[in-house]
């Protein structure tokens, strides 16, 4: 016989510029600091580079581009929040790791359709002292790693993928 449990999830929060964001803690793999990235020329603007983590080669992205993060980003000194999206791992470059917060689903405000952050933000939570933007990592990552067209490289074009 099962009992109904209040739907409360733990969110791993971090700062980007002057805003606070969070991802579901069940998708967090690790936090890396001061890890050297391998730059990927011609990659999408949101891709900062690649890093090696536990046998995997993991793309690190800059969510600030997609989330329009503004404010002091001087502390952006190589803190990478490594998360899993499906079977893949990605790194989010963040300015500062904050705390893990427990948030009842009922307290999550759904974003308005006109949000400039689009579907990358699944909701917001009023933590009293600050507003926490709860991210949808899948949509966020997809929008950041999508290659932009450049100097005629035929992505999916008539030459195929080789």
């Amino acid at each position, binding site marked *: 016989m099962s009992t109904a449990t209040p739907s409360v999830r733990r969110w791993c929060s971090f700062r980007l510029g002057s805003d606070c964001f969070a991802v579901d803690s069940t998708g967090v793999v690790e936090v890396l600091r001061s890890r*050297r990235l*391998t730059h*990927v020329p*011609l*990659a999408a603007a949101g*891709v900062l*580079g*690649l*890093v*090696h983590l*536990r*046998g995997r*080669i993991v*793309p690190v992205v800059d969510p600030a581009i997609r989330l329009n993060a503004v404010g002091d980003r001087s502390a952006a000194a190589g803190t990478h929040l490594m998360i899993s999206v499906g079977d893949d791992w990605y790194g989010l470059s963040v300015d500062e790791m904050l705390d893990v917060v427990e948030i009842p689903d009922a307290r999550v405000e759904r974003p308005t359709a006109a949000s400039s952050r689009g579907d990358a933000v699944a909701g917001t939570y009023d933590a009293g002292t600050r507003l926490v933007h709860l991210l949808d990592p899948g949509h966020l990552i997809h929008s950041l*790693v*999508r*290659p932009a067209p450049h*100097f*005629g*490289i*035929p*992505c*999916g074009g008539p*030459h195929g*993928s*080789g």
Partner: protein
Amino acid sequence: MLAGLGIYSGATVLGDGGVVLILDLRGMARAVDLPPIERETGDAKAATAAADRYLVCRTWRGRRIALPLGEIVRLEKHRSRDVQVAGPHRLIRRGDGFTPLADVDRVLGSASVAREADTTDALNVVVIRGPASDVGLAVERILDVVAADAPLQAALAAPGVAGTVSLGGLATEVIDVAAAAAQ
């Protein structure tokens, strides 16, 4: 992600844990609209020449040796102090695992040179594929990649040596890669 860019065939991890991108030369040519180059006649000869290319190295005992290019997985450079000892084995850490390290002089039946290199900082390692895992061959210096002037003379084989080949007019011992990998 890399595949979508069309100019990378992938990425791999170096001995120091860093990531390196692998270029897709055909993709790069397509990216800049280079027309395909037709092979000249004599394809078979060209293919044979490519197969008979060797990496030429010098061992710590000063022997000039060669390894078939097709047998080489990659080249690495490590700090000598990063070599770890576990029982009879010398190991180099690579990512989450270790690559066993063999001394080419020992493969050739000579004693390893007790060298001052342990205090210097550079160790050149030629990585080949072993029966169970990759194996690193420590050499004093990597000299060149040279195409053979003539086929390998297996009659001049010796312990650790598959034969001798003429490279740039110089008789050069070719390492028996299978024996080296089994060290």
